[in-house]
């Protein structure tokens, strides 16, 4: 599909900015493993301290990269499937809000005024521009949804009997989830935190802030994951040389995500006070519900790959795995996607452990957690983002991939790195190794009284994995920027692989319209979260004053608000 110069430039910037910032994000990832293994015993390195680096790593990799990509990919899928471009001014307004917001937050983090990590839990306080920047980034990313929904509604009126393309359902479901869940974090940031950070409000209800954040925070991971799922259902079978086993299964999965992505956030707060056990257990149950679409997807994709393998002549029960285009440089997108799936096997299964009530006590806030989420967000999400960014850019710009044979092995190197890295973290976590901690200063410093020798092999594994991952990322940057600076070879165009469905069921209205699902989604959210917000607002005692990471004395003078004086 030929697209306008405006859309081309928009997509270039929306892919290019986060990938450029990713260099900083990856650098800090590597530094984490170096500090934590006790290679250095310092609080900072090259003028950037550990927790500042950790904040940059989380915000850039998990918020900026993912949001910009989701928007760009959304533009691409809507434009490609409906042959209509998103409204120009809407798309550019969204871009500028996101970019200005990112720059504000980046300044605050790089200036050392926002070392609060990407969860920014109060009463730790960041510079107001960090909060404002985050709010702008999020609001900017909402805006395209309205243009896309408008295009969809028009298309549906003109084509009432045609099934909505699966990729479009993926994009619209994804951004509906995003819009709903970000309302809570926007409220947290703009109403609870920003006035408090500016000194206009003396205290903040920490539990309420956390509950609002996690209303957003769990659905966030589905916002990350659903573009990848869209690629798995609509592109992977074609790339493998086969067909999608069941189109309906894809629709059911996506609508189940719409239902269950949001009303489960309290499973991140199992160890929090002031939230009754009943609410925690109910949301834990709903979390098991959100596991179901992933299992459906695992089977459907395996069946699709089996079809592809058997078509190429594979024999035996699992022989089909051997007949797939793993190392074909012309099908590099297959490599990026399949490697994400390999990692997601472990990432998804460990996620179910985390959601399981009492089992959470074994792993919460230990290194097991980053072990888990690097096999999800740094697995299928990251690989699909960088793979598709390369694919979209090179297609639209009409350029050939730079070093194609290097490109196709990058995902495999990444998988090896992550598996070693997460093995170390998971093992360490089960032995009590904490996350979000500069271990090198104390626990991994042989001269320190807190030295914990059990964590030496685990942090060493994480370091090895981290080095391999960094090397893979470096190769990716060379390939991507090499492609970007290479000469245009042909007319650019927006093209996406489109898989044919093996079982292409007729249009079933229930799985082709949003209204009934939106209603159920709303009901579940109310059932799950009204009691949670009520408890978080009423159970806690006094609100907290502001603290900066370097000082136990609160920012507000003690006489005004501190509980010492009550």
């Amino acid at each position: 599909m030929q697209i306008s110069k405006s859309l081309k430039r928009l997509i270039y910037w929306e892919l290019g900015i986060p990938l450029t910032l990713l260099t900083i994000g990856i650098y800090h990832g590597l530094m984490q493993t170096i500090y934590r293994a006790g290679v250095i015993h310092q609080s900072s390195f090259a003028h950037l301290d550990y927790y500042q680096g950790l904040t940059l790593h989380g915000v850039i990799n998990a918020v900026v990269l993912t949001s910009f990509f989701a928007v760009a990919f959304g533009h691409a899928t809507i434009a490609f499937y409906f042959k209509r471009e998103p409204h120009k001014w809407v798309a550019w307004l969204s871009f500028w809000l996101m970019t200005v917001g990112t720059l504000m937050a980046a300044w605050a983090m790089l200036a050392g005024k926002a070392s609060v990590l990407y969860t920014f839990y109060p009463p730790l306080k960041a510079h107001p521009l960090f909060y404002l920047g985050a709010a702008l980034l999020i609001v900017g990313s909402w805006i395209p949804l309205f243009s896309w929904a408008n295009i969809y509604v028009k298309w549906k009126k003109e084509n009432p009997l045609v099934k909505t393309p699966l990729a479009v359902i993926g994009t619209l479901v994804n951004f509906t989830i995003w819009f709903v869940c970000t309302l809570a974090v926007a409220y947290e940031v703009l109403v609870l935190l920003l006035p408090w950070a500016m000194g206009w409000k003396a205290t903040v209800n920490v539990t309420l802030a956390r509950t609002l954040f996690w209303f957003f925070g769990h659905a966030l991971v589905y916002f990350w994951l659903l573009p990848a799922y869209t690629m798995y259902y609509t592109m992977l079978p074609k790339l493998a040389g086969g067909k999608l086993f069941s189109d309906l299964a894809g629709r059911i999965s996506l609508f189940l995500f719409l239902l269950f992505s949001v009303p489960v956030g309290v499973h991140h707060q199992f160890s929090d006070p002031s939230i009754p056990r009943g609410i925690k257990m109910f949301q834990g149950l709903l979390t098991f519900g959100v596991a179901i679409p992933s299992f459906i997807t695992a089977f459907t994709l395996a069946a699709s790959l089996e079809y592809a393998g058997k078509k190429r002549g594979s024999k035996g029960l699992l022989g089909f795995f051997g007949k797939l285009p793993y190392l074909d440089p012309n099908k590099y997108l297959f490599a990026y996607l399949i490697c994400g799936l390999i990692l997601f096997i472990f990432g998804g299964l460990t996620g179910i452990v985390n959601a399981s009530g009492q089992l959470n006590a074994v792993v919460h806030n230990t290194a097991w957690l980053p072990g888990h989420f690097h096999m999800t967000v740094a697995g299928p999400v990251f690989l699909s983002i960088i793979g598709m960014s390369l694919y979209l850019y090179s297609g639209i710009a009409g350029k050939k991939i730079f070093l194609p044979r290097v490109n196709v092995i990058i995902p495999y190197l990444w998988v090896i790195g992550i598996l070693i890295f997460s093995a170390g973290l998971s093992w360490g976590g089960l032995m009590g190794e904490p996350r979000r901690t500069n271990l090198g200063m104390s626990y991994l410093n042989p001269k320190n009284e807190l030295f914990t020798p059990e964590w030496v092999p685990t942090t060493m594994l994480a370091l090895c994995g981290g080095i391999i991952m960094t090397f893979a990322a470096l190769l990716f940057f060379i390939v991507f920027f090499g492609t970007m600076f290479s000469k245009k070879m042909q007319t650019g165009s927006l093209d996406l692989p489109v898989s044919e469905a093996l079982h292409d069921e007729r249009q079933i209205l229930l799985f082709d319209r949003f209204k009934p699902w939106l209603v159920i989604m709303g009901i579940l959210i109310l059932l799950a979260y009204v009691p949670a917000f009520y408890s978080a607002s009423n159970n806690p005692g006094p609100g907290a004053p502001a603290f900066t990471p370097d000082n136990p004395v609160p920012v507000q003078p003690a006489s005004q608000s501190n509980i010492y004086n009550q």
Partner: protein
Amino acid sequence: MDPYERKIILITGAVLSLFIFSILYARNRNNDLPECLPYNKAYLEPKITRLDEKTYQVYMVAQMWQFQPAQIEVPVGSEVDFFVTSKDVVHGLHINDKDVNMMAIYGNINKTTVKFEKAGIYKITCHEYCGIGHQSMQAEVIVNESSKY
């Protein structure tokens, strides 16, 4: 709907139900999710109270960057109730060798019960980022053989 897909959904549901059943079956007072208590500023005073030979109450206060009390001594076989809060930012309280994993939050009281059936030193580690001194925040429970008492 494809018959295979239908069977897959049923199998998934069965496995998840097995997990849910296992969780409910194993639920007891010593491994349950933390209890939520109404706020009371009395819990801000770090304290170890011996209710009887094998029953203790600890008011644990987390702050930047230490736990108070930093050392708790109990005889083996004791049951200890921890009442946890924070004087400042969010801290974590993790006793890895027992199933104790709680957040200490300003203005909130968190409670859990632990039974120490084996003698030894149990480390209490802060596992939520709480500022520049976070990596030095560790306390301990020393569980002594009964002969000491």
